[in-house]
């Protein structure tokens, strides 16, 4: 049970963090922060 809670919580934090990034990137029209996605003015801020 404790294992489930710890692993579940860690995984949930990772997914929430990734989802927040995805949401923010989409909202700010930010790409994956490589120069392959050129408008880097929106990256690294």
């Amino acid at each position, binding site marked *: *049970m404790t*294992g*489930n809670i*710890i*692993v*579940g919580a860690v*995984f949930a934090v*990772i*997914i929430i963090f*990734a*989802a927040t*990034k*995805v949401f923010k*990137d*989409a909202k700010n*029209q930010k*790409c*994956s*922060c*490589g*120069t*392959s*996605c*050129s*408008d*880097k*003015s929106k990256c690294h801020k």
Partner: protein
Amino acid sequence: MKIALTGNPNSGKTTLFNAITGKAENVGNWPGVTVAVKEADLKKKYNQQGLEVKIIDLPGTYSISPFTGEEKITRDFILGEEPDVIINIVDGANVGRSLFFTTQLLELGIPVIIALNKNDIVSKRGDTVDYTALGNELNCVVIPTTATSEEGLLKLINEAIKLGNEKKAQIAPEFPGKDSEDSDLARQKFIDSIVVKCQVKKRDASKVSLSDKADRIVAHKWLGLPIFFVIMWAVFSFSIEGVGGFLSGYFNEVLFGEIIPNAANALLEGLGVNELLQALIVDGAIGGVGAVVGFLPLVMVLFFCLSLLEDCGYMARVAVVMDRFFKKIGLSGKSIIPMIVGSGCAIPGVMATRTIEDVNERRMTTILTPFVPCGAKLPIIALFAAVFFPDNAWVGPSMYIIAIAMIVIGGLLLKKIFVWENSSQFIMELPDYKFPSIKYAFLQMIDKAKAFIYKASTIILVCNTLVWFAQAYSWGLKPVEDQSLSILASLGSMIAPILIPLGFVGWQLAAAAITGFIAKENVVATFAVLLAVASEEALHLPGGALVQFFTPVTAFAYLAFNLFTPPCFAAIGAMNSEMGSKKWLFKALGFQFAVGYILAMLITQIGSLIVYGTPAVGFIPAIIITALVATYLVITIKKSDAKRAELGVEA
């Protein structure tokens, strides 16, 4: 202190910007690579006094009077933001052409310093420029620089900071006819006189150089395209068969196939984690992300090779080769630049359409650019090529050739469907051939790899966690043993009938295609998640789990469907920004979907008839759809022809 970098396109502004700020912005040896303002702090190496200095890289422009969208950005920045100093980067190899903009800048009152760049090329040619005389003629300091080797940059920055601190207004040079109606002509005459005084050219332009001889073959009107295909075939073969393919095989089969899942399973079992949570983490998150990251070595090698091709000057020749085809369909050769940029990622490709002045050409290019296979589509190509065509190295390059064909056919159709008149011409200065920089190619490769991993650890991770959940649970949020009872199956089943005329049977194929619209890599990751649960066979191996859904012909068609239907959401967002109209965006998406759909349908049905002697599933609906599309096209083109006749516009 704000220091702005300005100059003609392809004068080396971004290379200089990267050198003095330590950034890794995209550079290229063709005009129009920078289409937006970029800002960064001056690197410590060049900022010995520790001042607060911001460097601003502006899109290239030939004149202070803007002609294209990105030139307007530069004009507006210089006039609106008033930087403390302007560093005008002048292409030392083309002084005469560059000084037109320089003389206009000098009239703004903002202190200007000239970086006479590409000094290495000037020296190599044996030409000489009298910097002091040039500076005296223009009333400003001229510093010779070579941005690629950072030669002269410290002196340039020190002079710029000194000028910024002095805060003296720039004094513009005077020349006869400056305020006359023919001021542009007078300005050019003044520039010509300066060039005569300050520059000695050793190179005889009428002599045929080795570079000219190479261009006669590489950019030949008939040989150019086959040479391009052979080069792309070689690049793909090297990437797939060489170290990239070997490492990708290891990543897919061993690292993400055994080592990481086994270790994760052992750890989670040891912690006594519930089976469903374990499956979510191992099959969903690790399996989905691993399936995409497994192709990372292959993608890195491919981009390394493409960067070498670009840096040695070959890609600029490809633009010239394509120009003659593009002109025939109403596109200018300028359209090839967004398309080459789009081979890395469709987003900057679409953004690069800003360099096209004509609104119709710009719209056409925005619609057609996403047809070029971008980095995100490479894992799909690699997966299908490995499973269905393991001994055929032509599959990867064939996607580029089909992309060119789709651009040409798509362009012709767009020109016929819409009443458009195109006028612009394409003039491009070909860079000299040079030995490509390994450092540049390496940095580009690392940059692409970073972007690839970022995507895999954000959008791909989130999507595949959701995909795993949707394939493991029913609408009542109860775990299901049979995938066909899951949420994903019911969603996929709603879309699946649309794909039957294409010979694609199964909700799994529809589900993978839908997730592909979020990010193209998701197609591979979704199959990895779905088949990890449903099949014991490896996904990436020849004759693997995918063969239950496809024949080689339908697999090729599915590949084409995913590559030539609308791009990912992020690229659609960029299309929306560039088109500036929802109406045009939806027209563009409708057109792209129709092209991808019809192409996949034709590959499946005609291919099955030729290869297997029988049509594929959905033959009758395919005929009906073909007839309906043909009728629609005939009616629309007739209507457009009538409108064109009315307006006196040629198709």
